[in-house]
């Protein structure tokens, strides 16, 4: 058990800081917000490190319980969302091709269609869109489930049974979401690239499938594959950690679960966008 891991949020001082009305002074207000932000970053960082440590140290512990739970989470954050992602991938292909073909034809730059698809879909929109959709469908559900469990005393029940709540509740969600987002991104990209060509064909773009495929492979590098895997796994890890943290790591009452859900959603979006910006810098530097 890891009781007291995030104790900084359980102290009366921290609760006071979080709930006290903001004072009228601007400097106090800014200072208090900054203090809250730092506390949140500290708590999330500690929770992420604890989760990583539990994943590594308890990999083979209780595998008859934790591994099936992980498989269930992979299905939940991946396989079960596939129909929705097939629809989104078709739409994404239409969106990118529909907007770009007319301009590329006008500029005589239709040879760059594959390059545009790689830059927009593979490097940027695919991973980020997948992460945000999984956050909306599964991440928010995580906060509600764990927050309700926390409010109803189920976490105390786990501790009474000497079952580590991070190992039993968080690890399957983190692993499941990291794998789920990676897999869904791959399907989303493949679907968008395929539907993109279909829309181009329907718009009478003079581009043969072989040429389109050659453009795509020419624009892709080994770094794209490596960073795609890294980025999507990072998105999954971040969303799972933030949503589990807000549902589990702080004492909650039932009426606070909805607020925790909103906070977790907003922080997940911000964190994912920041990580995405970091990857853009890596692409540009490479």
């Amino acid at each position, binding site marked *: 058990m890891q*009781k007291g891991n995030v104790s900084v949020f359980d102290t009366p001082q921290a609760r006071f800081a979080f709930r006290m009305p903001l004072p009228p002074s601007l400097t106090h207000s800014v200072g208090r917000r900054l203090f809250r932000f730092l506390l949140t970053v500290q708590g999330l960082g500690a929770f992420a490190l604890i989760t990583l440590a539990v994943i590594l140290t308890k990999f083979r512990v209780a595998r008859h319980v934790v591994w099936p739970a992980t498989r269930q989470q992979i299905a939940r954050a991946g396989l079960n969302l596939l129909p929705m992602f097939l629809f989104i991938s078709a739409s994404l292909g239409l969106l990118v091709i529909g907007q770009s073909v007319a301009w590329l034809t006008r500029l005589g730059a239709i040879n760059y269609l594959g390059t545009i698809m790689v830059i927009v879909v593979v490097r940027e929109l695919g991973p980020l869109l997948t992460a945000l959709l999984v956050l909306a469908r599964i991440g928010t559900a995580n906060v509600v489930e764990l927050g309700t469990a926390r409010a109803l005393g189920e976490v*105390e029940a*786990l501790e*009474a049974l*000497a079952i580590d709540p991070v190992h039993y509740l968080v690890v399957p969600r983190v692993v499941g979401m990291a794998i789920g987002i990676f897999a869904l991104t791959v399907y989303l990209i493949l679907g968008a690239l395929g539907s993109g060509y279909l829309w181009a064909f329907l718009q009478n773009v003079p581009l043969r499938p072989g040429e389109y495929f050659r453009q795509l492979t020419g624009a892709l590098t080994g770094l794209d594959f490596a960073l795609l895997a890294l980025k999507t796994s990072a998105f999954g890890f971040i969303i799972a950690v933030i949503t589990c943290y807000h549902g589990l790591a702080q004492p909650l009452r039932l009426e606070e679960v909805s607020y925790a859900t909103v906070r977790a959603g907003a922080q997940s979006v911000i964190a994912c966008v920041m990580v995405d910006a970091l990857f853009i810098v890596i692409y540009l530097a490479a």
Partner: protein
Amino acid sequence: MHEVAVSSMRDPSTIVVEGVNWTVASGDYWVVAGLQGSGKSDLLMMTAGLMPPAHGDYRLFGEPMPIFVDSRLETRLRLGLVFESGQLFNHLTVWENIALPLRYHENWSKAESAAEVQRFLASMELEPWADSTPGAMARNWQKRVGLARALILQPDVLLVDNPLGGLDLRHLQWWMNFAEGLSRGHPLLYNRPLTLVITTADLRPWRGQKRSFATIRNKRLTVLGDWSQVEVGSSELVRELLMAETVRP
């Protein structure tokens, strides 16, 4: 426990019981009585190791509590806790709730744990609900699931938080008989006598029984002794607890 102070689970900065000097010996059957809000549950949660004592020294089988490290897990698992409202895992079925501690700590598959879980389901008359989630059961039965879950790891000490609260007479009688059986040695635990600590807000079901009694009032745990000493002392609190129905709103 030596000079132990207990904080509230909800607000750790508030002390609810203090100056506790109390030893529970192997095979004891304690009934700790107190009005609602007196700190019985917090004392039990602290005893179960869910939080450290605010002050003082608390040892379980000679080892300082609470225990959070895996190397001392074996000692920690010698103690079981039954929550007042069961505190079952709502996403699991009754069968899965009971099997969870066994499967987690022993790393057993479903098939391996099936026979043991079945023994507990049968003994507690829970078979009809085995595949139901806790939400589909009445509260009376949820408490039994919580009891089965706490017992399946064969603990030496069992803490039970207000098991008789809100029960009808049939369930109340079942709990009294079952606790008696556990104390003497129940077949579920292979006839090994269990050390019991039970809290209550109503002393009437224990009237005249040969148990060890203690009360909590004004943040103090007072050890009374057996029933004859309860009657001799007959404090205002005991009188209130003996007519609990009329005292409680």
